[in-house]
């Protein structure tokens, strides 16, 4: 079950070691993104993602807004 969080919780979780993932296309990521975020566009998520992210740690995903 995915948990929705706000920016205050994002900050706390990042301080505690969570992984942050922007799922927008790379051009949007390159223009501006949250500090420490990695870019994994939605269409690229697949089996290899288990190697690219640590499944044992929390993962926070975000895009532009409530899309």
């Amino acid at each position, binding site marked *: 079950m*995915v*948990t*929705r*969080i*706000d*920016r205050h*919780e*994002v900050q706390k*979780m990042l301080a505690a070691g*969570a992984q942050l*993932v*922007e*799922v*927008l296309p790379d051009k949007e*990521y*390159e*223009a*501006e*993104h*949250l*500090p*420490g*975020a990695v870019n*994994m566009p*939605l269409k690229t*998520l*697949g*089996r290899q*993602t*288990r190697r690219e*992210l640590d*499944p044992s*740690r*929390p*993962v*926070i*995903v*975000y*895009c*532009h*807004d*409530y*899309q």
Partner: protein
Amino acid sequence: MSARAASRLETLGFRQVYRYQAGKADWFAAGLPREGREAQTPRMADVARRDVPTCRLEEPVGAVRDRVRDGNWDVCVAVDQQRVVLGLVQAETLGTHAGTPVEEVMQPDPLTFRPNLAIGEMPDYLKKRRIPRALVTTSDGVLIGLLRIADVERRPGQAGD
């Protein structure tokens, strides 16, 4: 898009998936740090004067008047305990009876901008509307500072240089 991404991660076996639903629009609108090619573009938050005086609704005008004049300001921002903006007190209204509470003289609907807005054409926008200043707040209404058109124009690369 983040909803689908979060669900996809769960199908891939991730057990601790969180979705920051409001996304980077919310993050930037709160004036929080950013990275990337456009991260250095000057924004409202970079120019806003964070030392603008503040007051409470129930404060007497006399006390506010002294604070405003001592700091050579021409406004004071009425805020609540969380610094959410409730109104703007203009210097010209501070001549009211000293015991009058702020809420009776303040402008209750001051113009506000988000801190992530690029400065860009802002001076022209404000000039055309004869607005000398505007408040910069987060998307939650929390005061960041006061933007004065004169401060914007003094920046390198802005009109008037």
